[in-house]
C-alpha cells in the first residue's frame, strides 16, 4: 500500500524564518558587512572560492554569511550560483612565472634567485591566542624594504637545467583539455582533468590523503621545491577583438612538489613532480593537492598501486565535498516509504525465524 503524504509547508516556512533569525543572532550586535568578511576572514573566503570553483571574493563572503560560517554550505551556495551564469570562454593559461609574488619559499634551495620571501605567513608563529585581538586595538603598518624587483625563476627550471627532473607535464599533441564541468568523468582520467578535480576538491579530504602518503601509504619522498602566492593576470580571447583582452588579476597559490624516482627501464633516475594550483591564498590545499597529484601518477610512472591515495577512482570520486555532503545529508530527508518496506521485510523474516525455531523445539521435545 502506498499513501501519498503532503504537509510540512508551514513548518518549512517557519524553519527558514527561524534560520534567518538565528543567522542574524543578537540584534544588539552590529550585522556583519561583506567587506569585513572579505578583508578580515580572507582565508575562509579563499577556501570557499577554491572549492566552490568560482573566483569572486564578494560572492564567497555573501555565501559565508548566508551559511552562518558553514564553509561547505557556503561552497554549495557558490556552486549553485555558478550554474546560473553563461560562459564566455576559457582564459589563456596563467603564467605563474610572472606572478606578483606576495610569498615565495623553497625547502630545497636556500639561495635561489629571487630569494625566500616569507610574506604573510602563520609559519614561525607560536600559536598562542592573542587576547589583544579581542579588544580590537590598532595594528601597526607593515615594514617596507625598497628593493628592485628580481626575477623569480621556478625551482623546477633550476633543476631542469641539469636534466635531473622531469618536464613540466606535457600531454600528447592534439590532446583537447578536459573539462569535468562539461563532460561526465570517465576513469582513468588524464592528468589535466584530475588536476581540475583536485583543485576544487575538499581541503580536509586531500590533506588526509596527502598525510597518508607521508606516513608510508604510497610514500613518495616529497620536498617542497617551491610555494608561491600572488596575483597573476588573466587574458581572454574574444571574437570581437583580434588581441587577447586583459580581464584583471586573481590571487593563486602554486606548489611544486619534488619527489624521488628511482627510474625504470625507459627513464633514468630523476626527480618527479606533483603540482598544486588553487584560487586564493590556500597553501595547505596547494601542498595537499600536489602530493595527491604525485600519488595519482602511480600508473603513469609504473609504480605499484597499493594505497588509497594512488587509487584515482577512489580519490577523485570522493574529493568533491558538495557531492559528498549531498549524498550523506540526504539520509536525513524523509525515507518513510523505504523504511516501511524494510520494516515489513524484517518483521516477516523475524516471523519465519521464530516459526522455524519453534518447529525445531517441538522436534527436539518429541525426540
Amino acid at each position, binding site marked *: 500500500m502506498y499513501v501519498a503524504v503532503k504537509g510540512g509547508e508551514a513548518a518549512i516556512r517557519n524553519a527558514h524564518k527561524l534560520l534567518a533569525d538565528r543567522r542574524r543572532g543578537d540584534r544588539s550586535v552590529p550585522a556583519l558587512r561583506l567587506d569585513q568578511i572579505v578583508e578580515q576572514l580572507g582565508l575562509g573566503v579563499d577556501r570557499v572560492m577554491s572549492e566552490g570553483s568560482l573566483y569572486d571574493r564578494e560572492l564567497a563572503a555573501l555565501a559565508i554569511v548566508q551559511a552562518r560560517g558553514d564553509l561547505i554550505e557556503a561552497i554549495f551556495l557558490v556552486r549553485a550560483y555558478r550554474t546560473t551564469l553563461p560562459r564566455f570562454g576559457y582564459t589563456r593559461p596563467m603564467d605563474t612565472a610572472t606572478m606578483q609574488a606576495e610569498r615565495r619559499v623553497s625547502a630545497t634551495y636556500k639561495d635561489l634567485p629571487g630569494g625566500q620571501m616569507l610574506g604573510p605567513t602563520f609559519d614561525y608563529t607560536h600559536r598562542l591566542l592573542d587576547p589583544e585581538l579581542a579588544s580590537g586595538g590598532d595594528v601597526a603598518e607593515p615594514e617596507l624594504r625598497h628593493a628592485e624587483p628580481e626575477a623569480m625563476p621556478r625551482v623546477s627550471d633550476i633543476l631542469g637545467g641539469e636534466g635531473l627532473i622531469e618536464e613540466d607535464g606535457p600531454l600528447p599533441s592534439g590532446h583537447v583539455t578536459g573539462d569535468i564541468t562539461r563532460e561526465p568523468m570517465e576513469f582513468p582520467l588524464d592528468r589535466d582533468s584530475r588536476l581540475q578535480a583536485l583543485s576544487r576538491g575538499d581541503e580536509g579530504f586531500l590533506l588526509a590523503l596527502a598525510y597518508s602518503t607521508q606516513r608510508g601509504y604510497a610514500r613518495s619522498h616529497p620536498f617542497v621545491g617551491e610555494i608561491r602566492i600572488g596575483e597573476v593576470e588573466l587574458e581572454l580571447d574574444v571574437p570581437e577583438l583580434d588581441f587577447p583582452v586583459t*580581464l584583471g588579476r586573481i590571487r593563486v597559490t602554486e606548489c611544486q612538489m619534488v619527489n624521488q624516482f628511482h627510474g625504470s627501464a625507459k627513464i633514468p633516475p630523476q626527480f618527479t613532480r606533483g603540482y598544486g594550483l588553487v584560487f586564493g591564498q590556500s597553501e595547505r590545499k596547494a601542498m595537499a593537492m600536489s602530493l595527491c597529484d604525485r600519488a595519482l601518477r602511480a600508473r603513469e610512472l609504473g609504480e605499484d598501486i597499493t594505497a588509497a591515495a594512488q587509487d584515482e577512482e577512489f580519490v577523485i570520486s570522493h574529493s568533491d565535498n558538495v557531492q559528498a555532503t549531498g549524498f550523506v545529508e540526504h539520509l536525513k530527508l524523509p525515507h518513510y516509504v523505504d523504511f516501511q518496506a524494510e520494516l515489513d521485510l524484517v518483521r516477516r523474516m523475524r516471523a519465519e525465524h521464530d516459526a522455524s525455531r519453534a518447529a525445531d523445539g517441538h522436534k527436539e521435545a518429541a525426540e
Partner: protein
Amino acid sequence: MAAFAAASGDELRKLAKASGLALDATPLRGPETGLVTVRGRIGGGGAPFNTGEATVTRATVQLPSGQVGHAYSLGRDREKVRLAATLDAVWCTPETRAAVEQKIVAPLVRMQAERDAKRHAETAATKVDFFTMVRGED
C-alpha cells in the same frame, strides 16, 4: 582596456567624471555577467588544465559618432564595465584618444604601479637574509 579592467569602479568613475569627456553612449550588448574558465598549466609550464571559474562582466557600447567600444573585467560591477566600454570607444576615436590616455589611462597606470610597488616593498621586507657561519678549516 587592461588599465580599465584593473581599476576599481570608484577610481574609474571618479576619473571619468573629472575628465570632462563626453561619455554618452548607447548599449549594444550588456553589461552582462558570466563566467570564464580559468586555465593554468601542469607544472607551471606544461599542458593547460582548467583550474576553476571566475565571474566576468562585459559590455559593448556605441557613441553617437558610431564608434563602438568593448570592455571586459573580472567581477560583477556592471556600471564600471559599461563606463569602461564607453571610455574604450572614446579612446578609439582619434580626436579624443590623447585626452583619455592623459586623463584616465595614465593616472590608472600610475596608481596601479604605486600599489604594486608598496606590495613589493612589504613582501621584500619579509625576505630572508641568511647568515652563513663557516666551521672547520677547509
